[in-house]
């Protein structure tokens, strides 16, 4: 079977390609160019020229063709546009999830179809399986510490049907062992950590460059509305943030709320950060049809969050509400909430 592997030049997608090759598939490696590689300041951590070189080396070692596809326009129109507008709206975006559903398993999958490949494989740490009813299930990775199912919650049944995650059943150390066994040049390459298209992790400058209006000053206020300080733009804040507020207080203060209209950033003590419930929009139900009644699940509200138990039910217009058994700090608008039943992704949406 011809299968397209999205190759970032990292160890995970490289081993994914290697495993598929060993299984006898005809692998075609595609690396996505997502932003201008030539600008002096344009080098992020992923998909740089060095990464493209690494991907090419792996393809040549394993003996399959490798191409670079230019998705700069699509990336700009989907992922970057959303990233900037979310910050400008006082929300904290999650570009990797958009990249997965709006680019890798959309534009890239379409390209794969054009090349006679029904599936796109990636190096994600997640598993996809078809249950007895024919429904595609998304599950956490065998390596819980590396699990990336949180970033894949917005894949539809159609997209999951065409997604392959060859390293989802492995742990990271096992993936590196495989890479060393195959003598891949990326075996000991460090994991990428940052948002790939933001140089030097300086997302505030990136947002300001794309949307200069965000730099309008505003007030930092306490819960009673008393102004404590001023700030240089709401894009510099995220709900739950403690550092860099420019306010001194006896007890640590956290960002509680960002109001894009008034440009007010409300801060308060950690106790005020906790929430008992949340609502989410554009909810994608995977394991079940949208549940009219309450369903017991756990909710993960950011990448490194330990899913907290509670109950969820669907609302109208593709929304959902979730109630935590125990209140959780830093429910951040713009991040994803993903509902789990043990390892199974029940569904997920964007926190309001």
């Amino acid at each position: 079977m011809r299968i397209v592997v999205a190759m970032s030049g990292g160890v995970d997608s490289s081993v994914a390609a290697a495993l598929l090759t060993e299984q006898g598939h005809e692998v075609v490696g595609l690396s996505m160019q997502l932003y201008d590689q030539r600008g002096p300041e344009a080098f992020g951590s992923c998909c740089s020229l060095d990464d493209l070189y690494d991907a090419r080396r792996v393809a040549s070692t394993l003996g399959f063709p490798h191409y670079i596809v230019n998705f700069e326009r699509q990336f700009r129109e989907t992922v970057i546009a959303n990233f900037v507008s979310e910050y400008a709206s006082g929300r904290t975006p999650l570009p990797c999830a958009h990249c997965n559903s709006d680019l890798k398993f959309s534009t890239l999958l379409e390209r794969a179809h054009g090349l006679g490949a029904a599936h796109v494989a990636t190096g994600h740490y997640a598993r996809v399986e078809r249950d007895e009813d024919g429904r595609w299930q998304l599950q956490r990775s065998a390596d819980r510490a590396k699990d990336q199912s949180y970033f894949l919650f917005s894949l539809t049944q159609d997209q999951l049907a065409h997604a392959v995650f060859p390293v989802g059943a492995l742990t990271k150390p096992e993936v590196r062992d495989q890479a060393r066994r195959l003598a891949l040049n990326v075996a000991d390459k460090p994991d990428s950590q940052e948002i790939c298209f933001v140089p030097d992790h300086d997302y505030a400058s990136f947002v300001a460059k794309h949307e200069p209006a965000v730099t309008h000053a505003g007030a930092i206020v306490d819960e009673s509305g008393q102004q404590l300080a001023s700030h240089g733009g709401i894009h510099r804040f995220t709900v739950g943030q403690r550092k860099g507020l420019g306010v001194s207080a006896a007890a640590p203060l956290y960002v509680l709320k960002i109001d894009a209209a008034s440009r007010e950033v409300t801060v308060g003590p950690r106790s005020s950060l906790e929430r008992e419930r949340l609502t989410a929009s554009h909810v994608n139900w995977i394991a079940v049809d949208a549940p009219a009644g309450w369903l017991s699940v756990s909710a993960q509200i950011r990448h490194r969050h330990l899913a907290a138990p509670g109950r969820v039910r669907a609302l109208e217009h593709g929304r959902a509400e979730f109630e935590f058994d125990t209140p959780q700090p830093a429910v951040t608008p713009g991040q994803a909430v993903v509902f789990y039943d043990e390892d199974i992704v029940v569904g997920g949406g964007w926190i309001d």
Partner: protein
Amino acid sequence: MQRIYFDHNATTPVAPEVADRMAAALREEFGNPSSVHHFGQRAKAAIDEARSAVGALIGAEASEIVFTSGGTESDNFAIRGVAEALEPTGRRHLVTTAIEHEAVLNTFKALARRGWSTTLVKVDQTGIVSPDAVTEAIGEQTALVTVMHANNEIGTIQPLAEIARLAKARGAVVHTDAVQSVGKIPVNVKTLGVDLLSLSAHKIYGPKGVGALWIRRGLRLNPLLTGGKHERSRRAGTENVAGIIGMGVAAQLAATKMAADASRLALLRDGLENGILAAVSGTAVNGTRTPRVANTTNISFDRVEAESLLIALDLEGIAVSTGSACSSGTLEPSHVLKAMGFSPHRAQNSIRFSLGAASTEADVARVIAVLPGIVEKLRSLTRTPVRA
């Protein structure tokens, strides 16, 4: 997989005669051509022989040929060399066309940043440069006019002799990048009436990394590289002996085979072109079909991204190209097609097929057979994936 190579304008396979001679040269002519002793003399003699062969191919004296690292260096040497040599005279204006190779365009940009004024002459959808338009661009300050002989992407042949005549009448030095015409059509520096001519070995079944600049006797230009007195003090650095010998053999082969190859390739190319136009709807040839080098056709495929088409064809074993590759290897819309006034869409949906010595009727038939299915598949795709 039986592979078909239709990308000879990118590079050509090294001819067996060239490879054999170069392998011998690497072993036997290892001497430094600047050395006084036997070994140096032997290498020097081999280079002189190559210089004569390259000169003969373009109707030039051997002594007027300077070997370089390739077409890009030759273009840089010609443009920068003349610009700098004439700088003290106050002539700081340079003229070229919008459809040149990047070796010329980016050299112009670099000189523009250093204070030279530059003019890019526009070209219409025929892909033929108008001699009048070039003439209009030339002023009293114009030091150099450079116009390519044949275009690398669409193959059109420029009215170079007329352009050279008009430009020289206005006192400008005339250079041509003939990388894509040498070996494909007769090139004679005297008939063309130019002052400088760039050529490259690997486009004529020679090795990569070697080229030449023909410099009309008596023309002054500054060297790019400073160092020893190699190449009559015009190009410092120990010569790429084996490469130069290979280029010499390639030039000899081109001189003897060119006419027969060209008429054969024209038939094949026309068969391919007409076959594609007939078999695939929404196709059109970019640029005029004549005058054009015999091996090249550039065809646009409506509603198909050339990037996908190129990859799909490669997976079928058919090598073609499109636009120019950027640093990462991805494709950008062709600057040539954009400069000719085609929409960005069309510039991004065009494929170049460039045939060569080993191309056969069977190759052409296979491409015509495979293309319609691939194009139909790419056109049928929507943004919503089909469930397996």
